[in-house]
Structure formats: C-alpha cells, structure tokens
C-alpha cells in the first residue's frame, strides 16, 4: 500500500475533529464563522484529494471501512423490507442478503452482498465472500421475482466468492455459472449496481442483467490487484501497478463500454454522506427506465 493512499482521508478526519470540537463547546461568539471557515477548508481539500485519485486510491475507497454497505442502502432506499432466507438445500449464507421491499410505490426483489459495519458483523458475513448456497439463495429468490413479475435489483460489493474447501465441495463454480445463465434467461428486469467491490466471478454471480451500473469510486475486476500482482509480478507489492494495468475503475469501465453508466458519488465519496448517495441512487437510477 502506498503512503499516499493509506493517508487519503487523514487531513479530513483531522478537520472533522476540529469542527466537532467547536460544535461541542459553543462558547465563543464567532464560532459559527470559524465552523464555516473549516467547512470551506474541508470542501476544497476534498475536491483536491478526489480530483487526483490513482486507480489504487479508488480501490482503497471502494474498500473503505466506512463505505456504506448494502444494509445501509436497504434502510435508506427501501420501505417495508422482508428478508427471505435460505437456498432450500444447504444453508442460509449471510454473505448474501435477499428480500422484497418497495422503492416508493414499486415492488422489487433486492439482492446484495453483505459486508457489515462492525468487525463482528464482518465476520458473520464472511467479509462479503459468498458460498455456493449464497448464489443458490439469490437464484431461488430471483425465480420467485420472475414468477410474481418483480424487477430484481442487485447491489454488488464483494472481494470475491469464498475461497474455501467446503465451497469447492459444494460447487462454487457451478453455482456462479448457473446464476449467470439463469440471469440472462429470467423474464423479469434486472438492474445490477456495483456499489463497492466488484470482485471477479463472485460479483458476476449476481451481476448479469439488463443494466449494469457502477458507483464512481467502485471497481470491477477479473481479479483483485493484489492477486494479479502476486501471480504476474510475483509480488503483492506491485498491487498499484496491477491496479493501473487492469483498467478496473468506473471511468475505465465506462470508456471501454463495459458498464452502462457511472453513478456520481457525493463530494468525498459515498462514505462521506451515505444518505446522499442512497438518495442519488433512488432518485435517478430506480425505478427502471
């Protein structure tokens, strides 16, 4: 990891702390002006940082520990959500959440990778790395959606499918393959949105549809830059080189015609204002055109 990316948000965090301190002790008279000044400083700093990002910086943003996970989008965008568990064959994979809810007046099946917000949640959700039963659960619910004419919205955020002995025994590759085939066949609209990490086949397992969108600081790649560096450069230290070579940013993917649209993020990326991010998504990209 480069020094620059490791500290990407540090100056902002410092400014935020100063602003908060002022807000907590509203003694001085000129406090409002001072806060305003600091806010302005923060804004221009954010603009500066975010106008000059390397592909590997973007990878870090897409993996930011505060980046809103699928559960945030569901709570901000969806009303009356009913979670539906289970693949009806092996287990309930918590790395993928599926359920039905409403976007305004429109019903939809929502499917997404779960990453969680706390360390405890991340462990429960296996860091968003699904097992075959997760893909089979998603497929089972997509078929339910087809039966009842519900559009499907998938929210993609995974480093990849779970690399694990059990996952291989239960047919990880087969589960992803069947999903890709079935998603191309399903007679219901499917909209896929990469909201964070679009990691390889693990992303595509819920990522084939009528529209393929990506958030500004999300990425989609055939392999993680670290994995690519380890294989082709023989060293993980070359992850930045791999990130450059793979052309995996939203902008690159759009220019190559792989994604239909790039969804702009708020200033300072989604983690700076998750609500605003969700609103943009809800207002402009759902319901389906």
């Amino acid at each position, binding site marked *: 990891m480069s020094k620059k990316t490791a500290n990407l948000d540090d100056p902002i965090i410092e400014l935020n702390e100063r602003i908060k301190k002022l807000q907590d002790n509203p003694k001085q008279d000129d406090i409002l002006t001072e806060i305003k000044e600091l806010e302005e400083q923060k804004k221009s700093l954010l603009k500066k940082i975010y106008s000059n990002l390397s592909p590997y910086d973007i990878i870090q943003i897409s993996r930011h520990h505060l980046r809103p996970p699928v559960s945030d989008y569901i709570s901000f965008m969806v009303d009356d959500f009913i979670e*539906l568990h289970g693949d009806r064959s092996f287990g*309930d994979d918590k790395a993928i959440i599926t359920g*039905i809810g409403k976007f305004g007046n429109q019903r939809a099946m929502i499917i997404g990778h779960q990453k969680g917000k706390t360390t405890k949640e991340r462990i429960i959700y296996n860091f968003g790395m699904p097992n075959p039963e997760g893909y089979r659960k998603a497929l089972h619910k997509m078929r339910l959606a087809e039966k009842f004419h519900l559009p499907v919205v998938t929210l993609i955020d995974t480093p990849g499918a779970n690399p694990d002995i059990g996952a291989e025994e239960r047919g990880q590759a087969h589960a992803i393959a069947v999903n890709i085939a079935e998603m191309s066949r399903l007679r219901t609209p499917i909209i896929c949105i990469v909201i964070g990490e679009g990691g390889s086949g693990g992303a595509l397992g819920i990522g084939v549809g009528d529209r393929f969108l990506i958030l500004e600081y999300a990425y989609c790649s055939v392999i993680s830059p670290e994995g690519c560096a380890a294989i082709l450069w023989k060293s993980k230290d070359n992850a930045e080189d791999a990130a450059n070579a793979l052309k995996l940013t939203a902008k690159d993917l759009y220019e190559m015609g792989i994604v239909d649209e790039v969804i702009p993020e708020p200033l300072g990326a989604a983690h700076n204002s998750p609500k605003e991010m969700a609103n943009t998504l809800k207002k402009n990209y759902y319901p389906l055109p």
Partner: protein
Amino acid sequence: MPDGLWIRCEGCKSLVYKKKVEEKFFVCPECNFHFRISAAERIKIMLDADSFDEYWKEMSPVDPLNFKDRISYKDRVASEKKKTGLNEAATAGKGTIEGKEVMIVVTDPSFIMGSMGSVVGEKVTRAAEMALEQKLPIIIASGSGGGARMHEGAFSLMQMAKTSFILSRLHQAGLLFVSILTDPTLGGVMASYASQADIIVGEPGALVGFAGPRVIRETIKKTLPKGFQTTEFMLEHGFIDMIVERGKIKHELSKILEYCDANHSS
C-alpha cells in the same frame, strides 16, 4: 391448553397468568414460547374478523383398511372428534387478510397429531383447486406431527403425491403459495406440500423435520444436539425463508400477499 387461571409454560416452566398468554395470541409473555393452538384459534389470528368461510366441513375419515392397533381406527376417530369438536385435522376455507382474499388450510395437531389421511389430503387438494379456479393465493398452516397417517396406510402415503400434483399446477399458473410451519410438522406432510411453497414461514421454536426426533435418537443411539429440528435450525440450514412471531403473522402475510400478487400489473 389446560383450564385454570394460571398455567405452566412449557418453555420456561414458570407459572404464567393464562389471560396474559391468551392476549398475546397464546405466547408466553416471559419467554416467547408459542403454545400449540387449535385450528380455529389460528384462523382467528391470521384472518380478518368474521371473514372466514369454511368449506367441506362435514367431510370425515372412513376406515379403508379396517385398521386396528390397541383400539380400532373407527373408535379413535370417534374419540378424537369428541375431544376436539372437529371432523378431521384439517380446516379449509376462504377468508381475507387485511382485505386480501385467500384460500386457507390449517391442520390442528390435537386431532390424531394433525396427521394427513385421505380427508386432509382431499381438503388441501380442493382448496388448491379452488385457488386455481378463482386465481387466489393459498396459505397452508401445518401442525402435523403425525406426517402421513398410519391408520389409512398407502392411501395416506398417496396424499403426498396428490397434494403435490395440484400445488405444482398452482405454481405453473403463477399463483402464490405460502406454507406456515407450526409445532410440530414432520414426515409426509413436511416431505410434500409443506415444503413446496413459494415462501416458507416458521413459527418460533416449532419442531420441524422429516423423521421424528425419537425415531432418530433410537436409531443412532445418540442424544440429539440442542435446537435440532427447530424452525431456527431449519432457517440456518436454508430450508425456510423467515421466522415470524404469532402476533406479527397477519401483517407479514399481508405484505407477502401484496408483494407476490399474481394479478398485479407491472
């Protein structure tokens, strides 16, 4: 549920005020234990007040095998009828949930363990046929610890095929089927219609599975793990979609009916 002002909860073993339990839809206010309830009570909890129209009420089992264990099947049926006031384990009909029309079948575990003989199979089948004709969703709440009823032999076994056949047609017609698993649902019922629904809902803590726990224990000669074959166990293993407390079931069903409305145009 026994008479008296106070009852002992089978979940937490504490004495609880009966009226409190009844107010909470027969759920223990201390530990959330869901008491077994009759088909009539369950229908009252799930459907809008006075909306239930019962069909095929007079249908009652015959004794095709002239079956006799310690007592004859005929005598058993007679005493079960007297005990429960029902003609069979299944009650079927039509009603509304928050205004939405549904076909409904409920099996009552107090009538020969809610097991499925020819009449239970027939009522499920007729309710599904009516759902198909009238393009209605169907909800089946199972409390069938007995699975397929031994006393009617292969006739009971074949109800598994008969009910599955009509529910497959319902599925092909794009109609909604919701299965609710209550304590206990096992054997041939679980291995046929109870597992075939679009959405499978469990009551908390209900015993659900194929082989009964006693049979498994005696076969493998091992104690069974805690929580084995509960609805929570089934949720973890991917076989049911959600667990819903009894007090919330009506509204959750209403949402499911809205989301999975076959006649919805969009």
